[in-house]
């Protein structure tokens, strides 16, 4: 909300400059986001938390002045020549302001017109520029007449965007020559209030905070009403019926008779404008002014219209709308209401949407002479809902009611506004304010043991100071031996009872006392028992392992689209967790395929990368298969499974002077990574089997199983789907593993094999086998047959050719035999080799090559 300094000063003395005040408020939890300086001198360097805008008005150059005479410009129809007295002399000023054109033929004006005058050399905003460009007045000729000074519009002074006419001050404005800054110079604080600060959505609320922070006494506004006993009213007060007191705990109404509706005086219009509201007429302006001042929204009804509709004394009823009931609101919108919309109605139907916006029919117009002022209390949750239903988020009244306004405020505020309007509109109040108050607001009482302050804050605020702080915020405090008995003020709805109330009070004490005044200490409370976090350790170990293998980690959106996942043939085609309010169709589901996300990343990078080798570790979300519609939301939560996905795409090696080959990464680059992962996490009981999967190319699809449990697929992706992602120049290699499962299988420890001190015997053998026998069958057979003596089995050659016959392949192995207990002889090695060859022949029909 916006709070002008001049207005705050009506209720509290302020002796510090605006940016110091802004810091004080910000640190106490009322964040001043910006200060708009309107004429007042601005700090040269802004070191506060707050953004600063606005302009200074030089007291020498920008002053109050009077127009004493107005004549038509001899050479231009749309200009006038005004004689302006600025306290020092008479100056001719040429202006095209529409509000002076009326006086074109007037000559000497009867009552001097009080205006803002900029002398030659003054710096102002350029009224014709949209971006607050400043300009300095200099001598020039306009249509044959010399001009050197200016009568100012609000825009030129940075008051508002208004440039249609010049400012005309009230007749009681100070004398000509007075610096303008001394009259209306201001600093406007733009304060962002958190939801717990609803009691501060008013000038008075902020002034009260300043009072507490600066230890200064508040001067609350007078809320008395003057009832004229001498006159007799032509009206009866309306009857008021509240159908649902839980939704409308209070309704007050004051009738002001025989008033004159007209524009408000300039000072009032100015306050509303700089506080962000548009002046309408004195009735509407006063209700808005008092709402901003006190925090309680008000509404004015044209009582002539109400009486006319009732054909008698109006009967006001507040109730929920009937379904599809209609009301045209002040903004001209025809609204269809629902059964949760609260209404103020009369005999003839809806008058206004309670607490948010009035109806067009009972709007106060220039012809209105009798006005009914309403100040009521509405249920904040109901108002919040209606604001959303009716798209009325900009309503200032709705803003306040939806955050909570204490019912205690209604009567005082009503009387404050009514009295102000009586005087301003020259009307009279002949009936007492009607106050229907079925559910009385109760204030909470808190017993605060004094030790609680230290227990929570780590410092004992002196009790005297604690009492001062609370009293300055209008809490009622009685000191007992070891505790304070505290009653929350009427205007507070946010103060709880018992532990909650204590926390609320301690928060008030802490923020006014100042967080800066609380020391910094280190925890010396009993430290909890520490726990192992084995799964996380394993996850991080895998992350490091993948990085070591040269892969770049990525983190992608968890929100994805079914389309993307279908494109890459996500394994599981069942339903996703679907968002009810996605921001875009591309992010409308919670992903079920991590590989799809990783592939999308590869797709986005392939245009500018020669070589992509990436991995991601992250959850996928598997909906529970609940057909039970009555399942609680707890049971409906999806399973979050951690997965690992790897994607390789591009050249095998980056371009360099050493290597400029265009060779792509092939399946075996990925296979090497998979082998090394398994090696690195010390899982040996696994197998890799050929398989089929729609995402992968037939014949190049591998399934990883650990302890016979399928963990996921890897291989060359089906080019049909990858080409749709723009991955066309190379084969795309990918792995998609269930990481939660891998982590389950990862041993918590592993043992090493001792390194033998004896020399090894190394020899190569080649075995010819049928093409349909896969290499792993032979490799495992050799390893198994070789036993503990065979330390290493390296497949170094796979050969096919006519020399070995059709449908055959030769597998060349380098075998390292080494004993832990003796030096092996060639004979020992030969024995073992023969055993291997024999077994291979027996089991797979293998022939030794080149014996």
């Amino acid at each position, binding site marked *: 909300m916006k709070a002008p300094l001049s207005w705050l000063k009506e209720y509290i003395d302020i002796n510090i400059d605006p940016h110091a005040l802004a810091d004080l408020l910000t*640190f106490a*939890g009322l*964040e001043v986001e910006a200060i708009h300086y309107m004429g007042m001198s601005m700090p040269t360097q*802004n*070191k*506060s*938390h707050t953004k600063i805008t606005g302009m200074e008005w030089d007291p020498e150059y920008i002053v109050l002045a009077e127009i004493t005479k107005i004549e038509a410009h001899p050479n231009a129809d749309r200009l006038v020549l005004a004689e302006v007295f600025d306290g020092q002399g008479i100056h001719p000023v040429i202006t095209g302001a529409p509000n002076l054109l009326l006086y074109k033929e007037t000559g000497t004006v009867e009552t001097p017109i009080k205006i803002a005058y900029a002398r030659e050399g003054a710096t102002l905003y350029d009224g014709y520029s949209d971006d607050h460009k400043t300009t300095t007045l200099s001598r020039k000729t306009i249509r044959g007449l010399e001009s050197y000074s200016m009568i100012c519009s609000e825009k030129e002074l940075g008051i508002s965007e208004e440039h249609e006419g010049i400012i005309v001050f009230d007749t009681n404005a100070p004398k000509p020559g007075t610096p303008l800054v001394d009259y209306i110079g201001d600093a406007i604080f733009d304060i962002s209030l*958190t*939801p*717990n600060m*609803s009691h501060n959505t008013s000038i008075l609320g902020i002034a009260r905070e300043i009072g507490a922070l600066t230890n200064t006494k508040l001067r609350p506004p007078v809320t008395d009403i003057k009832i004229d006993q001498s006159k007799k009213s032509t009206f009866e007060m309306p009857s008021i019926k509240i159908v649902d007191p839980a939704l409308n705990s209070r309704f007050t109404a004051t009738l002001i008779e025989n008033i004159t509706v007209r524009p408000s005086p300039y000072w009032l219009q100015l306050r509303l404008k700089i506080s962000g509201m548009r002046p309408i007429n004195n009735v509407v302006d006063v209700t808005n002014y008092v709402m901003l001042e006190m925090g309680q929204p008000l509404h004015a009804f044209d009582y002539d219209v109400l009486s006319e509709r009732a054909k008698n004394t109006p009967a006001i009823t507040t109730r929920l709308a009937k379904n599809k009931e209609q009301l045209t609101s002040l903004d001209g919108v025809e609204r269809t209401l629902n059964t949760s919309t609260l209404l103020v109605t009369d005999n003839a139907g809806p008058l206004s949407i309670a607490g948010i916006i009035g109806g067009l029919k009972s709007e106060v117009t220039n012809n209105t002479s009798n006005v009914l002022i309403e100040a009521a209390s509405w249920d904040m*949750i109901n108002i*919040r809902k209606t604001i959303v239903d009716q798209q009325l988020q900009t309503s200032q009244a709705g803003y306040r009611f939806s955050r909570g306004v204490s019912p205690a405020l209604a009567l005082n505020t009503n009387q404050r506004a009514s009295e102000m309007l009586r005087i301003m509109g020259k009307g009279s109040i002949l009936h007492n304010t009607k106050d229907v108050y079925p559910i009385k607001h109760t204030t909470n009482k808190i017993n605060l043991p004094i030790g609680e302050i230290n227990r*929570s804050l780590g410092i004992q605020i002196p009790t005297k100071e604690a009492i001062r702080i609370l009293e300055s915020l209008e809490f009622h405090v009685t000191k007992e031996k070891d505790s304070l008995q505290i009653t929350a003020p009427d205007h507070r709805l946010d103060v709880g009872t018992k*532990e*909650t109330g204590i926390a609320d009070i301690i*928060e008030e004490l*802490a*923020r006014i006392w100042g*967080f800066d005044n*609380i020391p*910094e*200490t*280190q*925890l*010396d*409370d*009993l430290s909890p*028992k*520490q726990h192992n976090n084995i799964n996380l350790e394993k996850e991080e170990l895998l992350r490091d392992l993948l*990085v070591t*293998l*040269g*892969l*770049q*980690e*990525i*983190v*992608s*959106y*968890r*929100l994805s689209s079914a389309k993307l996942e279908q494109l890459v043939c996500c394994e599981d085609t069942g339903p996703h*967790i*679907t*968002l009810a*309010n*996605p*921001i875009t169709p591309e992010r409308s589901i919670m992903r079920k395929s991590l590989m799809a996300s990783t592939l999308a990343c590869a797709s*986005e*990078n392939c245009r500018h990368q020669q070589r992509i080798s*990436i991995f991601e570790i992250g*959850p996928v*979300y598997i909906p529970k298969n609940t057909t039970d519609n009555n399942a609680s*939301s*707890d049971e*409906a*939560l999806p399973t979050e499974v951690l997965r690992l996905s790897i994607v390789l795409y591009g050249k095998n090696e980056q*371009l*360099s002077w050493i290597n400029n080959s265009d060779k792509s990464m092939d399946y075996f680059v990925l296979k090497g990574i998979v082998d090394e992962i398994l090696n690195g996490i010390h899982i040996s009981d696994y197998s890799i089997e050929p398989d089929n999967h729609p995402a992968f190319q037939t014949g190049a699809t591998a399934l990883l199983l650990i302890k016979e449990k399928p963990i996921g697929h890897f291989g060359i992706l089906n080019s049909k789907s990858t080409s749709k992602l723009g991955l066309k120049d190379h084969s795309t290699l990918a792995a998609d593993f269930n990481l939660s499962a891998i982590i389950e299988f990862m041993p918590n420890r592993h043992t090493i094999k001792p390194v033998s001190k004896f020399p090894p015997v190394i020899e190569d053998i080649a075995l010819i086998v049928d093409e349909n026998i896969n290499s792993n069958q032979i490799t495992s057979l050799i390893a198994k047959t070789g036993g503990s003596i065979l330390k290493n089995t390296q497949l170094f050659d796979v050969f096919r050719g006519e*020399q070995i016959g059709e449908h055959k392949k030769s597998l060349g192995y380098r075998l390292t035999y080494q004993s832990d207990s003796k030096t092996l002889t060639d004979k020992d090695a030969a024995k073992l080799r023969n055993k291997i060859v024999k077994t291979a022949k027996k089991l797979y029909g293998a022939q030794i090559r080149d014996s």
Partner: protein
Amino acid sequence: MIEKLEKLNSIAISELYKTSDINAINLWHTKHLGKKSHLMAYLRNLGQLPAQDRPKVGKLANEIRYKLENAYDEHKNTLVSQPTTTNKNSIDITLPGRPINRGRLHITNIVLRKIYSIWADMGFQIYKSREIETDELNFELLNIPKHHPARDMWDTFHTNTPGVILRTHTSPGQIHAMRTYCPNPIRVILPGMCFRYEQITARSEIQFNQVEGLAIGTNIRFSDLKGTLSTFAQRIFNKNTKTRFRASHFPFTEPSAEMDVECFLCSGKGCGVCKNTGWLEILGCGMVHPTVLSNGGYDPNKHTGFAFGMGPERIAMLKYGIDDIRYFWGNDLRFLEQF
């Protein structure tokens, strides 16, 4: 036959190392490995050999060919990297090395690990909880009732299952952790991904990480919160980092505060990053609200606690001068490779 091949090999090798410029080495290649070379002739004519000799000779010829090609590549590289005018042992040491495919962690995880380790030193262990949550855990048990105006502080992604939402903060983890450990003291951090219904811009994202912290015990005070968080700030930024605490509001803590750190880029003098204020907003914190303590099973008359929440992406942005949050999940490798 075998001997002939071996001889061929040794001659070729010795001739190779006599070559000292590109021309010579190219001629060498044509002579020993070209189509008309002796070695190629052997390989071409293998079929004419007696059947029993073929595999052995073929294998050896191929091996020699492979060895010679390798030796050729290696020698050629040595020659290319040598400036021609200086002596044979000198190489152009400024030539780029062989490209190495280095792997890296994502920047978010680099920063998360840094955060984890600092908190671990202070006795705060990691506690992870789910990302898709119930309204009850994400809001109600954290003292944010349905329809309360405080809910406006979080723009929420709802799923098609009523009451199931994407968590808007890691705070539901507070309840999970309390219910796990109650009535014992707690010191945990709760890291993880959170989601908000927002437009994606340079400053706002629909998903982001949070690291929440929670300490519960019988003697934990706001002053401890200040001291602990200042220590953290001094370790993640630098040891001279100053902190300040502003009053704020979160429904699940009371009193609540925002912690600012003095801008480490300008040492508080004012710069573009801190918008000339000299301070950077880093995290929100406060004393655990008694209602939340009760919901977690603790007695607010016996136990107190503090909680805080920070954004690792925000910290990364400040530390590395990242001006657009969209870099994080955009995964442009040209960005990720800079860490």
